[in-house]
Each structure stands twice: as C-alpha cells, then as structure tokens.
C-alpha cells in the first residue's frame, strides 16, 4: 500500500470521566474513500474534530505528506485543504443557503462589496451538482433537516478540499439524495480527492468505500481493504460479539383501532385519513419534504390543524398543543434532536424526565429524586446509553447516544401511541437493534407505533403496514406482505397506486 497522504498517529484524547481516544492511528490515502466505523461513542467524531482542528489531542502526532504538522484552529486545517461536514449541523439559520455555503469565503469586489451575483450563481451550481432544487437565496431556517444537510455538503464541496471528512452525511438523507451524494463522492475520488466517510449504514460502506478503519471504545481495532471485509465481520469487530437478525419482527395480535385520523388538513398536509390499530407498527415513507414530519407534528398538536378530526377509542379528541397530545397518550420523538428534541445544556436525567415530570412529583411539589433516578437509570441501562453518569450534560454525549436519550424521553411518558420521526438517525447497528427490540416490546404490550423513516429497509423490516406520502398527501398504503421497495418509491414520487 502507498504511503498515506495524511496520518494521525498515537492520538489520545480524554474528557472528564471519558477516555474518548486511546492511542489511535488513522490513515488517509490519496484518492481513496476511507470508512471510519465504530459504535456510538467509539470516538469517531472526536478523532475527526482533532483532524479538523476543533480539538487538540492530549497526545499523538499529525503528518501531512510525511511532514509533521499542528492544528490550533479550524482555519489551520482548512488552510491545508481539509474540509469537514460535522455530524451536528453547523449552519446559521438566519442566513441564506448561499451565504452559508460561502461563509468566511465570500467573493468580494474591489470595494469590499460582496459579489452577490457570483455568490448565488456559484451556490446554485453546487446545489445542482448535488441534485438539490432550492433557491440559494432561501433562508436555511426554512429548510428541512435533510435539505440543511445537503447545504453542509455543498459547503464542504465549495472548499475544493483535498481531504473531505463526512461525519454521517446520509444520516438525514433519503435514498434519492444519498444517491446524488454518492455520485459526487465518486467524482471527487476520481479527481484525486480523499474522503473520510463515517456512517452507521453498513450497506453504504460496501457501495462506495475503498478502505475501512474500525474502532471500539476509543481504540483502533482494524484497518483493511473493504473488499476483504464482510458486514458480519465489521459488526463483530465494532461490537465485540456477533449480532443476530437486524429486524426482529414480532407478530402481535392487531386488534381494535387506537387512533383514527379523518381528513386532516393544513398548509403542509392535505386531507389525510388513516387508522392505527393497537399493537401495530405503521411505517411512513416518502421523499424529503413530503410532509411526513409536518403530519406527525400536526397530530401531536405542535402545528395547528385547519380541518379534520383525531379520534381515539371512538371519541373525538381536541389536541391543540403537545401537552394535550401527551395527555391523550400520544408521544412524538423529533427528527431534530439538537433543535427540537433535547435541551443540550441540561443533564441526561433532566432531559429524559422532562415530558413526564409529574409522575415523580411528591409532597410539596418536590421531585422525588430517588424515584426519578431509578427510572432514568433503568432506561440508561435498557438503551445502553454510554455515559459516565446520568448527570452528564447531553451536549457532551456522542450523537447516537443523544438520539437514544431523545427516544427514551418519549418512552418515559408511557404513551399508547408513539410517533418516532427518524428514530435511528445516527444510531449504530447494535443500538439500532436495541431500539427495534424496545419498539417491538412496546408493540407487544398492545401499544401503537408510527415510524417515519427515510431508510426503506427499516420501514420494510419493522412495519406491519406502510403508508407513503408525497407533497403532503397519502399516495399509497400497503400491507407488509405486498410492500416492496419499488412500489413504495413509485408512490413516493407521486404515482398513485390502488
């Protein structure tokens, strides 16, 4: 093998109470796509933050083209041609797409005036290359998460970097965008660009990566050509043991109707009607921007409905706020954990119990700390959340672990209807299975679940029935047995099916 273009060697990084990286060596080869794999909290993002100058390592060295270098700020790393797409979105919501893409590198004329025409036309081109049809003058705050992610990717591309780090770029993307991203990655590789690719979707690794580095608990486990690896092998190295079947379906008695939606409409969704039965998992598929999140939020009372009814146990419910929804036993877990799901500066405990603190209230309005900690402790264990303690601020958790906290926060309310919006975003294979098990458990207890997901295998693997949306309307509903990837996709682009 050739000498690596960039090498990180003997990297160690410790946070209070956590040794995130322990003597890691990581190589980036010219013109190759490098997969970096590991469970949630293995230290992937931390390693990449050191590579991009956000953190400094406690020990270890960086070599670029054989020469040792040091990064003190993100700018240092940018200057030698490293671009990074962080796992967590880092956009300025109040600025436009174009302004975000070129932030810090705006083209200016002789009078220091920003050349808006160039800025927006260059942005337009980048978006086009990624197959995104959005006006670059649009504000980022008006984009869905997936669209924001595409802006991040465009931003990284605009740097014309030699090395591009992508920390779970497809985590919020549907198949369509993922496909355009992969085409771009292939182009970049052909141009001699090196890419570090982090993902928990192992199928993707085999599709575009050349090399893979596997980490566990902050330690290097293995580096190899992807061709010499298999999914099972990778999982085994990541998790440290074998894993059984990915989507362990349980068949439950699907009985009476738990929730019925009739003719629900507002500015985002149109005339939505469906039923959800006890013990059923209803998967909702669709492309980005199809209105799935809006539908969920409308049912949950977070977006006002203009027309329509929500019927539970045969009775019409007035749901005007999330509070009403929770009182009726409907819980919603947001797709955007950072902005809408969690309060980053609060602890795991405070986040998890927030939606249902009342159950812990004792005399004199006092929160029964013992009771609270017992329940939280059991969820941390049940969901294997990796943290030194339940008092850790959520901000300091790895992305996947944050996602688990967000889901636990919904589960703790003991809902009868659980709406999960992209529940496994950023979650590793092992933990995914834990989440699926939990959902199945939930279902087995006679509860109902709606899963909104952009990962078709997940939808197909978990759901009893599948509903497809396009442009705010339902364009198809399938029973599990009749659903196929092709049929779903057809409906997703708007072709009706009987």
């Amino acid at each position: 093998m050739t000498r690596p273009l960039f090498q990180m060697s003997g990297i160690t990084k410790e946070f209070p109470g956590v040794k995130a990286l322990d003597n890691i060596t990581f190589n980036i080869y010219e013109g190759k796509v490098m997969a970096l794999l590991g469970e949630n909290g293995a230290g992937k993002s931390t390693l990449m933050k050191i590579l991009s100058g956000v953190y400094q390592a406690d020990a270890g060295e960086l070599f670029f083209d054989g020469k040792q270098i040091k990064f003190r700020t993100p700018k240092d790393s940018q200057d030698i041609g490293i671009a990074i797409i962080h796992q967590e979105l880092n956009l300025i919501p109040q600025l436009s797409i174009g302004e975000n893409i070129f932030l810090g590198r705006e083209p200016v004329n002789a009078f220091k005036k920003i050349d808006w025409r160039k800025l927006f036309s260059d942005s337009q081109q980048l978006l086009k290359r990624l197959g995104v049809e959005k006006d670059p003058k649009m504000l980022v705050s008006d984009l869905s998460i997936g669209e924001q992610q595409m802006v991040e990717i465009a931003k990284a591309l605009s740097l014309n970097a030699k090395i591009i780090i992508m920390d779970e770029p497809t985590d919020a993307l549907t198949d369509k965008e993922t496909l355009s991203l992969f085409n771009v990655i292939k182009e970049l590789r052909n141009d001699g660009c090196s890419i570090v690719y982090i993902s928990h979707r192992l199928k993707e690794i085999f599709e575009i990566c050349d090399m893979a580095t596997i980490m566990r608990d902050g330690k290097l486990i293995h580096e190899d050509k992807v061709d010499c690896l298999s999914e099972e092998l990778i999982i085994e190295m990541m998790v440290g043991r074998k894993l059984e079947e990915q989507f362990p379906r349980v068949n439950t008695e699907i009985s009476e109707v738990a929730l019925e939606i009739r003719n629900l409409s507002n500015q985002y969704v149109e005339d939505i009607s469906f039923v959800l039965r006890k013990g059923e998992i209803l998967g909702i598929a669709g492309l980005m921007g199809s209105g799935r999140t809006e539908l969920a939020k409308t049912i949950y009372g977070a977006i006002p409905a203009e027309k329509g009814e929500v019927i539970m146990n045969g009775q019409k419910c007035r749901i005007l706020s999330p509070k009403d929804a929770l009182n009726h036993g409907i819980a919603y877990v947001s797709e955007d954990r950072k902005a809408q799901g969690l309060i980053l500066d609060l602890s795991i405990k405070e986040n998890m119990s927030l939606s249902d603190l009342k159950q812990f209230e004792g005399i004199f309005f006092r929160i029964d700390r013992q009771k609270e900690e017992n329940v939280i402790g059991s969820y941390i264990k049940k969901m294997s959340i990796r943290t030194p303690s339940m008092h850790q601020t959520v901000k300091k958790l790895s992305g996947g672990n944050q996602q688990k906290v967000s889901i636990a926060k919904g589960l703790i309310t003991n809902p009868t209807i659980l709406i999960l919006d992209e529940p496994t975003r950023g979650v590793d294979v092992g933990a995914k299975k834990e989440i699926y098990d939990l959902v199945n458990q939930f279902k087995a207890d006679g509860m109902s679940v709606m899963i909104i997901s952009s990962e078709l295998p997940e939808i197909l693997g978990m759901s009893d029935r599948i509903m497809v949306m396009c442009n705010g309307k339902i364009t198809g509903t399938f029973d599990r047995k009749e659903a196929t990837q092709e049929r779903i996709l057809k409906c997703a682009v708007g072709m009706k099916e009987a």
Partner: protein
Amino acid sequence: MKINIEKLLKFKSVIGLLFFTVVISLLSPQFLSFSNILNVFRQTSINSIIAAGMTFVILTGGIDLSVGSILAFAGAVCASLIASGMSPLIAVMIALGIGIVVGGLTGVIINKGKVQPFIATLVTMTVLRGATLVFTDGKPITLGGGGSAEKFSTIGNGYFLGIPIPIYITLIVFVASYYILRQTRLGRYVYALGGNEEATKLSGISVGKIKVIVYAISGLFAALAGIIITSRLASAQPNAGSGYELDAIAAVVLGGTSLSGGFGSILGTVVGALIIGILNNALNILNVSSYFQMIVKGAVILVAVLLDRKK
C-alpha cells in the same frame, strides 16, 4: 475528579468574595465588626430580593426592567393605604398582590403578544413610573407616628433575636427560590425554557404559563422590596427604585447566570448581590471620594468576574 474541578470553579466567586473581604477588613477594622456585617446584610437585602426574582426571569432567557417601578408603585400604594388607616397586614398583602398582577400582566404581554421581554418590561417600567407619579403627585407619602405605622415599621427596622427582620425575609426568599428552582417541576421548566424553548414546547410544557409565572414572581419580589424600603424610611418615594434593575441584573450575571438563559443558579445570585453590597459599603467606610468610587467599583466587578469566568 471532575466534580472537584467543577465545584472549585463554582466557588471561585466565593473565593474572590472572601479574598476581597479580607483585603477590606485589613484596610478598615470596622468592616468585619458584627454590627457592620448585619448592616451590610440588611442593606443588601433589597437588591438581593429583587435579584432573586430577576434570576427566575433571566434563567428563562428573559429580562425584567420593570422591577424598580413595581417597587415604587407597590411602596406608594402600601404607604397610602396605611396612611388612610388600613391595617398594615392587609396593605402589605395588597401591595404584594399588585406586584404579582403587574408582573403577571407583563408576562402575558410577552407571551400572547410575542413582544420581546426587553420592550414589554420597558413599557411596564415607563407606564408604572408615570402611574406612581400621578398617584403620589410626585411627592413622597410619609407615614406619621400611630400604632399601625409603628407596626409597619417593624418590617424594615425590627429585630428578632438580635438580627434585623429584612435579613430573615431575604433568607426566606432565597430558600424558597432555591427550593423552587432545584426541587420542583417549575424550576426544571424554567431551566428548560431558557435552554431551548422549542424543545420545551414539544415536551408538552405550556411555555406561556411559565413565562407568566416568572414575571409574576419577579413582580412579587420587587413589591416585597418596595414594602421593605417603604417601611425602613417610613415613607414611599415616587422615584424609588429607579435604576435598580441594573443592580439586580448585575448581581444575577455576576453570580454566573447567563443572560441567554438556561444556565445559572440562585446561589450565584446571593454571591453576586453580596459582592455589590459589600463593595458599596466598603467604599463608604473607606471614604473613597465619590468620583473615584465609580472607577474602583468598576474595576472590582471586573476582577470578580474574571476570577469567576468559565475556562
């Protein structure tokens, strides 16, 4: 390990406070006398009480400029009721009620009107100051002798077991605030709201109600401070409390609470208020000339906050 560093960081401002106390007491022997310590605590009680309410507001990411005006208005109403022969207890209750209602209304404007807290409380501040001036006709309402005036005077001037009553009141305010913020649901919601309003809403919490409550608490405490001042002076001043909002906010922020909300503590506010109170006392005791007082005060606050900054 981690806990130790964090704890130390937390107490740095306390260390600064102690250090500062030692320096002053070396410069002036009277400073650490028992009577002066009580004096400082009593003087600090007004700002401390207001700052306690302000802590609730700031933790939600808001701000309350109306405290000084509420203080004056509540004081004026209380004094005029007592002067007109009402029982002090009822007068005090009414004054406290005014604080709650005015604060709560401001909260409603912020919530329903979607008005930025700065503007909403600026409006309350301006309108209520005008109302106080109209009500008092710009002149102090002074309490004569009389039994009920005497009784009322106890609030600000009385002692219990050798310790001034205002100190007990302050203590109760802080213990209650600590309890609410640390041990109850409301407290959690206050922090959550300041941390991420959107996520708090989606957690099924009625954010509007929390907003109304925190401004009502701030109004209540401001009215309480107004009652104490009025009782101490046996007179309600129409321009009482002007500029007090700055002192209260300074105490909260000096205590490490972030103006953007979600982060901070009521204990920090105690320390912040004490730093300001001790500073004022020390500058008087050391007879620093009034022009230089400002320079010294600014410098000391800067040092205190630099000592306390997060890495």
